[in-house]
Every structure is written in C-alpha cells, then in structure tokens.
C-alpha cells in the first residue's frame, strides 16, 4: 500500500535533487515520443544530447547558446524570487538589441575602444527601459505584469521588423530585411580562432557572481526573499514594495538587454528579423530548473542549451522536426513542477504484513 504523508518541512536535499529527476524523466518521456514517431529511442536521444557536444566546435556552440539563457535567467530570478512574473524577457532582449544595434550603426565604419562599451551599455539601457513599462504599470496602475510584459514581446518584434525592413535596412543590401554589418569595434571579440564563442560569456559569468552576492549578502536580497515568501509579511516589515518591484524589473530587463547585445554583436554582427530563437521564453524554464540559484542556473542553462543544439543535429541526421527542442523544454518544466510534490509530501510504502 502507498500512503502520502505531508512533510513537516520542505526537504532541502530533495530541493536540489528534483531538477535531476526532472531531466531524467524528460529523457524517458522523450525516448517514448521518439519511439512513437518511429525512431529508435536510444539512437535519437544520442543524436539529441551527445553527438552535438562531442567535439570542440560543439562545446563552443553549447556555451554560445547557454550564454544568453544564463544571463536572462539570472535576471528573471530577481523577479521570480520576489513574486514578480516578468515573462516578457524576449521583448526586453529584442528592444535591448534594437537600441544597441542602433548605436552600433551610428559608429558604422568607425574604430575606437569606446565603441563596444557604449554599444553594450545601450543594450542594457534598452532592456531596462522596456522592462520598466510593465513595472511602472504594475506599481502605479495595478496592471497585470504577465499580460503587459507578454504583449510587449509582440510589439518589440514588430518594431524590429519595421526598422530592418525600413529606415535601418542596408542601403546596399538588395532589400534584404537586415541592417549593415557592424564595424569590428562594435563586435564582441571571439575567444578562440575558428570557434564562435565570444566574450559575451563573461557578461553572463559576471551576472552570476553579482546576483549571488546580492541574493545572499545584501539586505535587498533578504527583502526580495521575504516578499517572495509572503507579501503580507514584507508589507508588515515596512519594505518599500513599489521600489523593489521596479528595481527587480530593471535588473531583469538589463540582463535580457545584455543577452540581446551578446547575440547581435557576437555571432550575428548585424540586426535582422530573427535575432533570438525564443531565448527569452526558454530562460524562464532555465530559471526554474536552476532553482533561482545562480549556480543552479549555470547548470540549467547548459542542459537547456543542449535541447537547442540537439534539435538541430537531430533534424539534420534523423529528420526529426526541430520543434522537438521546444517539446523537451516544456516537458522539463512539467516534470520539474511535478516532482516538486516530493518537496512537501513523502510517499511511504507500507508493507501488507502489518
């Protein structure tokens, strides 16, 4: 017989174990889906999760994809920890890319050490500006931040589309929907010859360190934790709720904006329509899978980045549709949330002898 018992206290060991369990269950369910689709499950999983990162190039690609995911997820963890549901990081990424791309185009064919920092700063500011819209509407007009931040994603993509088709399109570009290539001074340096991994990874690592410090060593981190735990308690303790809401949105907008900068000044080198394969949405999963913990988010971003690469490899070698990546991402989150049940409840197996 099975009996379910409520735990007196959420189990800390299980808190960090469930993400691993969720990944395992996702692999099992993924194998099952491949089997239903008529593929050999183990072979498909191998092409999905091992082949893409088996060589140096693959590993560089993994880091390349994990960088924006990690950066955005770190930003989102500020919001989610304090109970603010910013789900429009994709829009903040896009708007950050627009602003920084615009600045980069101003420096077209110019050289100078000051160009790249200006471009990066512009991206962070762009992301912050865009994130401030749902934040201000939430604090001063009581408007649901989930819906506002999401609607703004669609708006940002349309602004980008307008710019790359219209005023910012490359005059010598035969009407392709893209801008000029940025000058070399506006591009993030590559770390290794022949690989695409670029200096943007340091931005992500810096975000990890800073967030760890803020979460665990500052009063602000403590306030965020309390507000996330219980808004009533936070209000009772006299925390300035409105200020904090705006602050966490700005931080998360800046991170998403920086992720956008990393993409356009790194592997892309210009603005065009498809600057992000939904990194902003996928990072939500990364943030949860990493348990909103900076170190956890590093691991989670690597795991989730594989689903992007795996989807590409599986499509090339096995004609498995590339959307399988998204299916895997959705499943990881499902299984993670489901296994959280074990945090609060114990399953006891009671022998029939009793």
């Amino acid at each position, binding site marked *: 017989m099975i009996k379910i018992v409520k735990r007196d206290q959420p189990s800390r060991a299980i808190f960090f174990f469930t993400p691993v369990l969720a990944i395992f269950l996702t692999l099992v369910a993924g194998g099952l889906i491949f089997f239903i689709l008529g593929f050999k499950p183990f072979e498909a999983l191998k092409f999905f999760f091992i082949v893409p990162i088996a060589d140096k190039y693959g590993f560089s690609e993994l880091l390349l994809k994990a960088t924006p995911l990690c950066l955005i997820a770190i930003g989102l963890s500020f919001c989610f920890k304090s109970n603010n549901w910013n789900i429009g990081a994709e829009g903040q990424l896009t708007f950050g890319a627009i602003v920084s791309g615009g600045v980069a185009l101003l420096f077209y064919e110019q050289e100078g050490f000051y160009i790249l920092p200006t471009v990066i700063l512009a991206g962070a500011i762009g992301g912050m500006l865009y994130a401030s819209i749902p934040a201000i*509407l939430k604090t001063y007009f009581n408007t649901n931040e989930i819906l506002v931040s999401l609607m703004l994603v669609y708006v940002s993509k349309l602004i980008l589309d*307008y710019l790359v088709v219209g005023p910012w399109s490359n005059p010598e570009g035969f009407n392709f929907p893209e801008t000029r290539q940025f000058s070399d001074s506006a591009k993030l340096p590559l770390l290794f010859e022949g690989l695409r991994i670029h200096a943007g990874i340091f931005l992500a690592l810096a975000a990890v360190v800073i967030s760890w410090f803020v979460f665990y060593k500052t009063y602000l981190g403590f306030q965020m934790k309390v507000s996330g735990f219980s808004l009533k308690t936070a209000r009772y303790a006299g925390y300035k709720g409105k200020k904090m809401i705006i602050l966490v949105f700005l931080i998360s907008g800046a991170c998403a904006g920086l992720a956008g900068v990393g993409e356009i000044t790194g592997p892309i080198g210009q603005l065009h329509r498809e600057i992000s394969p939904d990194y902003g949405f996928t990072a939500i999963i990364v943030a949860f899978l990493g348990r909103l913990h900076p170190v956890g988010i590093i691991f989670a971003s690597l795991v989730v980045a594989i689903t992007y690469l795996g989807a590409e490899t599986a499509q090339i070698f096995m004609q498995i549709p590339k*959307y399988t990546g998204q299916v895997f991402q*959705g499943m990881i989150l499902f299984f993670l*949330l489901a296994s959280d049940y074990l945090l609060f409840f114990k399953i006891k197996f009671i022998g029939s002898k009793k």
Partner: protein
Amino acid sequence: MIIDINFIGLIIASIMASAVPLILASCGELITERSGVLNLGVEGMMIIGAISGFALMTVTGSLIIAVFGAMLAGVLISTIFAFLTQTLITNHVATGLALTIFGIGISAMIGKNFVGIPGKEFPVLFEGLKDTIPLLGPILFGHSIVFYFAFALPFITSYFLKKTKIGLIVRAVGDSPESASNQGINVRLVRYACILYGGAMSGLAGAYLSMIYTPQWIENMTGGRGWIALALVVFSTWNPIKILIGAMIFGGLTIIQFHMQAIGVRIPVQFLTALPYIVTIIVLVVISRDSRKIRLSTPSSLGKSFHKDN
C-alpha cells in the same frame, strides 16, 4: 461617394468572424478562472486545437470528427495542467507557461506534415438569406455553426453562472474554496471540470482558426490570440457579456488594419499589426486602475492552490 450598405454589413461580419476565437477561448478561461484557477496555457491549448482539427480533417475527411477531436485534444492537454495544479499542487503561472511552450512545440511537430495542404470548405448556414435584408443580411446569415455558437456562448455562460446550481458551485469554489469544501463540495473535482472545459473551448477556438477562419495550417498561427483571450477575461471583470464587447473591439482592430492597408493609409504595416497588442495594454491599464473594483470582481482564490489536509 456612394457607400454600399451591404459592404458595411460585410465589414461588421468580418469583425465578428475574427472575434469568434477570442470569445470561445475567453469564455472557457472565464469559467476556469471563476473556479479559482489561472490557466496561462490558453495559447498552447488553442494551437493544439488548431493542429488537431486541421490534421483530423485532412486524415479522416470528416468535419464533425475534426471539430470534436480538436475539443478533445484541448481537454487532453488541459488534463496535464489539471493534474499538475490540482493533484500535485504546482504553481498555476509556471504550469500554464509550460503548457504554452509544450503546446507550441508539439503542434509544430505534428503540423510538419500538414504545411501547405489546402483546407476544406466548412459549410455555412442560411447562405440564401444573405441578400434578403440590407445591412443585416450579411451580419446575421451565411456563417458557420461555430460562429453562431460563439455569439451565444457569453449569454449561456452568464446564465450558467448566475442561474444554475452548478454555476453557483463553481463561483463558490472560486470565491472561497475553504467554505465550499466545508459544505461538502469536492473542490478539486469542480476545478478539474472547469479546467477541462476551458481546454475544450480553447481547442474549439483553435479549430475555428485552422478550419474556418483561415482554412490551412501555419506554424504558430494563433499568433498571441490566446494571450489576448486571457487579457479579455480581465477586461471583462469576469463578466461573460463584457467579453463579447471586448472581443468585438479586438476583432475590429484586426480587420481595420487590413482595410487601412487596402486603401493605402501611409502608416507602417508593423504599427497596424502591433495595434491590438498596444490597445490590450492600454485597456488593461484603464480597467485595472480602479484596484478596488478589480478586487471586488476577481475570484478571491484566483491562482491560489487549495489543498485539503486530511
């Protein structure tokens, strides 16, 4: 300039047609939310309904199987959400997001083999009566059965919530699950039912898009309508009749954008396309500003998990 009165009728009819998926999904979500559950997976359930309806129509050739199959697909996918949030007590927001990501992925996966296949013609009712009455003829007649159902649904929903016993139970569960539970109502069962109903309506909304409105399968063809449907529920302050008004406004924005392009208004097309999203934000701000009113009309337990300790 002579304005053909039937032309105005046709424009109104096309606005109504584009409002249909919003009405269906919003009315479904409204029932779910009235029971205290916030399901952010509308977009995912809708797109699953869209591909299921289109795929079943292509494979079986039967429109009836396709429409009901799409609703069933919505029910099935929402069962995942119901199981997670009600049985495993997961966070509503995160689970709904997972549902949307999963739904978009799986629909594109299934839909791979259905891209570029032409749809079938969906039968319309009262076609012959269209020209009998000026202006009203094209508005009232010559639409699909789903169209008529959608415009009846807000009234049915309103009647259900206000006048029936089950409707009262749903509201009680949403407003105070504790007291409902003390009255002997199975809160979890009611919420399961409301979630699955919401799934069915979102599935139907999706099927309307892929089978009737633009009869073909395009990846991501719901294009945020699921999210607008969610916004409409807030806009309506959980009153089904107001969903009708909201959906007509958004339908109108979509249609006007086409006509403005057609008559050559010199506004960038991207701005016109962005209009429904921008207006959604503005409307949400206007509605939500009065926090007291919102608090009074929001189901009190919305988005909060309920677990009955043994």
